[in-house]
């Protein structure tokens, strides 16, 4: 059997789903190869989408035409806007998901998509000729031909689960790992690294004593992720907070010699931002207690997720330790926590289009690039598909700059930084954070979205209207004066412009509706809000624009592909080695690679000057 496709996506996780949907929607015959149809879009770890910086990514995925935002809006069971007490740029939406409904939503979206086939099978190898990918070989001997292939294998490549002394070869708990592809890529000269991540136990709802836990609800006035979502009135199902005790820590401590983390059985580096519980009690031994969040995995779930208790300690220890937590004394375990080690391909091997440098037509997205998180994976899956399609169509890839989007920051970081732990998005990684707000994703990415072509024109026209109105309103806020006895009933001694009052924090978000009714009745609420943010924070925003301008001088200086660094004697040895490894596309990118010194950058500038 041989079946012909334009694009083959291997892996049905969050990267694979976005990749397959985008490729098919952009008109390409697409195959999604997955080990098991039912596991498509499964949330293998925490039951939530979004969060700090990750929420920004989801908004960008939405504007660019991805599915994640719509899926969580449709299936979320608790929504919260984080950091609301702080400035706009760090507000970020997060939702608790109904894992079952979320996966079902995505599976339905895939099924409904024309030009898209879901193929159950284990991809054992790639068909590569003349450094170009030609197709995918399945374990049953069948072959799919494709002009481009997107690998989104998650933690499945040579996955190995650790629970205490026990090691199991697996992709996820109870699911087989994938072996062939990483061996093949290794033999082709790809360098392969090893990372580790973990997941906590799941316990039964009936065994939790909620009377001893703190209740945590979502926002009473929730906001959706997607710009397309209207009439939003989701569920608001609470999560619960528990605290570890001295006794918990004592039990964990007593078994450290049985932890694969400390006995050296786990070689892969784990994330510092999401440490296992045994890691926490060792590294933060001065803390008497750690928070645990109890989260339902779906609406009415009997299975609850113990957020904060990820562990690879032996089963008996995990059970005893968790049962020492007030409220969880009678905890019944459905699944035990585990650590998983997996292969990834250090991302200096890909271009910013996410295509590998060594094999043309081969794209990597998600954990295979050393990232962590559903949102990071989805953003890469979307961009990999967009660029694979554009490659087939003879168009330049879409590469976003760091001042344009978190997605741009994410991919640029992948292509210029060494991966020493699974990469997770943080707002602090975006140096132009004030410009990359959750609320202005549509205005920032309007032009790029149009170029990509996944959004219907009607949506883009709506964004365009908001952008136009925002510009008008920024000027209008400066001109429009409020006098004593104004329609907003704002107590004033003398007249002042709307803009001034916004900067003096005498007008806030809550007043915008009244301002619209009184002065700008024809305008969109969104436009009023956008103009409000730009006005209130104008000083800082202007400064960030200046910083962007300064940085772009280096970003604009391109390094020709295939540049021969060996010909520049004056580069430092480490600098040369890093330049050859990362092959930065611009001087700006080169300047962010650790090990490339300022002197190396000056040398490059002088060489490229002419």
């Amino acid at each position: 059997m041989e079946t012909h496709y334009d694009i083959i996506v291997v892996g049905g996780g969050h990267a694979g789903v976005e990749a397959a949907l985008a490729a098919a929607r952009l008109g390409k015959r697409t195959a999604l190869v997955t080990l098991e149809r039912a596991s498509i879009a499964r949330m293998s770890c925490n039951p939530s989408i979004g969060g700090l910086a990750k929420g920004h990514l989801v908004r960008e995925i939405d504007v660019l035409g991805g599915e994640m935002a719509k899926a969580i809006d449709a299936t979320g069971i608790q929504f919260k806007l984080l950091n609301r007490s702080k400035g706009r740029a760090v507000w970020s939406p997060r939702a608790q998901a109904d894992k079952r409904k979320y996966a079902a939503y995505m599976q339905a979206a895939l099924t409904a998509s024309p030009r898209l086939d879901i193929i159950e099978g284990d991809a054992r190898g790639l068909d590569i000729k003349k450094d170009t990918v030609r197709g995918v070989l399945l374990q049953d001997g069948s072959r799919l031909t494709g002009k481009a292939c997107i690998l989104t294998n998650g933690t499945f490549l040579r996955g190995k689960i650790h629970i205490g002394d026990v090691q199991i070869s697996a992709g996820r708990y109870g699911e087989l790992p994938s072996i062939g592809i990483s061996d093949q890529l290794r033999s082709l000269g790809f360098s392969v690294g090893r990372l580790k991540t973990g997941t906590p136990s799941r316990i039964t709802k009936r065994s939790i004593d909620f009377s001893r836990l703190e209740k945590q609800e979502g926002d009473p006035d929730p906001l959706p992720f997607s710009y397309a979502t209207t009439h939003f009135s989701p569920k608001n199902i609470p999560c619960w907070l528990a605290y570890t005790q001295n006794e918990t820590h004592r039990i964990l401590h007593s078994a450290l010699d049985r932890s694969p983390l400390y006995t050296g059985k786990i070689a892969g580096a784990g994330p510092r931002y999401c440490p296992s519980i045994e890691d926490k009690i060792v590294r933060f031994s001065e803390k008497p207690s750690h928070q645990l969040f109890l989260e339902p995995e779906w609406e009415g779930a009997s299975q609850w997720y113990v957020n904060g208790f990820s562990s690879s300690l032996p089963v008996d220890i995990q059970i005893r330790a968790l049962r020492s937590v007030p409220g969880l004394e009678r905890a019944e375990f459905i699944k035990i926590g585990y650590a998983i080690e997996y292969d990834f391909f250090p991302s200096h091997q890909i271009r910013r289009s996410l295509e590998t440098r060594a094999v043309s037509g081969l794209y990597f997205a998600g954990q295979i690039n050393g990232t962590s998180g559903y949102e990071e994976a989805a953003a890469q899956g979307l961009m990999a598909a967009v660029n694979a399609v554009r490659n087939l169509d003879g168009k330049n890839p879409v590469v976003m700059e760091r001042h344009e989007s978190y997605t741009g920051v994410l991919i640029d970081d992948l292509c210029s930084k060494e991966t020493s732990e699974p990469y997770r998005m943080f707002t602090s990684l975006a140096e132009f954070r004030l410009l990359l707000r959750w609320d202005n994703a549509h205005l920032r990415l309007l032009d790029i979205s149009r170029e990509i072509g996944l959004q219907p024109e009607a949506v883009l026209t709506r964004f365009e209207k908001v952008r136009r109105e925002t510009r008008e309103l920024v000027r209008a806020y400066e001109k429009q004066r409020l006098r004593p006895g104004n329609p907003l009933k704002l107590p004033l001694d003398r007249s002042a412009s709307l803009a001034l009052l916004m900067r003096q924090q005498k007008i806030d978000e809550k007043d915008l509706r009244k301002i619209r009714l009184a002065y700008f009745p024809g305008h969109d609420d969104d436009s009023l809000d956008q103009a409000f943010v730009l006005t209130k924070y104008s000083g800082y925003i202007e400064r960030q624009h200046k910083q962007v301008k300064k940085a772009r001088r280096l970003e604009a200086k391109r390094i020709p592909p295939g540049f021969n660094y060996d010909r520049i004697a004056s580069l430092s040895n480490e600098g040369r080695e890093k330049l050859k490894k990362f092959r930065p596309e611009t001087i700006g990118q080169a300047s962010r690679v650790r090990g490339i010194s300022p002197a190396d950058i000056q040398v490059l500038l002088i060489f490229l000057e002419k």
Partner: protein
Amino acid sequence: MPMSHTHHDTIAAISTPPGVGGIAVIRLSGDRALPIALKALDVNELRPRLAQFARVAHPESNTLIDNVVATYFKAPASYTGEDTVEISCHGGYSASPAVLSLLYDLGARPALPGEFTRRAFLNGKMDLLQAEAVADLIHAVSGGAQKIAGRLLSGKLSGKVHQLRDEFTGIASVLELELDFSEEAITPVSHRETEAKIREAVKHISELAGSYGGGKILREGALVPIVGRPNAGKSSLLNAVLEEERAIISHLPGTTRDTIEESFVHKGFLFRLVDTAGLRETEDHIERIGAERALKTLKAADLILLVLDPLSGDDYRFEREFLTRYKDIPVILVHNKSDLNKPFPEFPAEHTLEVSATGSRNIDTLLDMMLDVVKAHYHVDGSSIAITKQRHLRALRHSLESLERALKALGEHWSNEFIAVDIREAIDALDDITGQTTSADVLNNIFSHFCIGK
């Protein structure tokens, strides 16, 4: 592939000061330094790091140009990091230029100003601060200047800047912690604590910025005008000082015919003593001072010697007004003509000394006092790290401005991401000092301040 000519061709220049001297050293650096040298010299080989005697003859007429000593430094163990040959010729206006011109004929090209150091920088032999320090070292006339340049060269200022940078990074991380990990059970660092840390950083930056005066004094010397009424003994004092200090550096007419500037080194520190004969005060009123340039000298003064004459016998109105006007600049009241045993008037001055310019009395004490006052006032203790460049000062000021903005924003309760912008700017400004983000223009500007061959 475009190749910069600055790298693969071979450059040559005379590296010693122009003029008549015992020897002149020609430096030849680049890929072809060795073959060119071997063609010019009558030796078959040049061994690295060995001074070898050789003859340079004209290739056609075979007439002797000069007897020289040549030393070969093999890349990368050379000043520039490239193959380098240093040829010591006889000084003067005929031999060394003739050797140099032969090297040009053989394929070397004249070095541009600062090009040797530029290559050294590009070859990673030194960082930007060190490259600047080399320029200072070359121009250093006093021991103090050499010391400070030497410290820069050893990377001490770089170290200090990196230390400050670490401090800022520390502040930034605390700010970020509360933003990116607000969901975690982390007790946020209070704004007050952050404020204290930023104030600490402001203090450190201000100190470093404050060292500019001292750094400048070490590099350029302390400018010390001698002020006083006519016949107070200004010129005699100047002469007495110069008599005492044999190490006269120069005897240059000042910028106007009315100002005389004399430079000398006292205990390793350079002083530039200016006789402000231009201050021709009329009717004892300083407002009448006409000489604009003399006023300019006073404005730039690091220390003023105000010479008092016990014979003038009036109410010393001029001197009192002068002291009020220049209260920001340290002044030494020099009571001249102490040999006359006349009583001196009382003045509210910190530093007072009785001297006799004509009798050369207490002149060495005056010199020591000048040194002490300058050292104390400009915190020049000879061991601290000081900045010497306007460029460094500007960067530190930018950094300070950013920190001040951060403090203001904290006071106005802006949330952390805004303060983080200010801290990031403060870090960027520091990076400008070490060359992290310095544009090629700034670099070219720096390098163009070198003389040919340095």
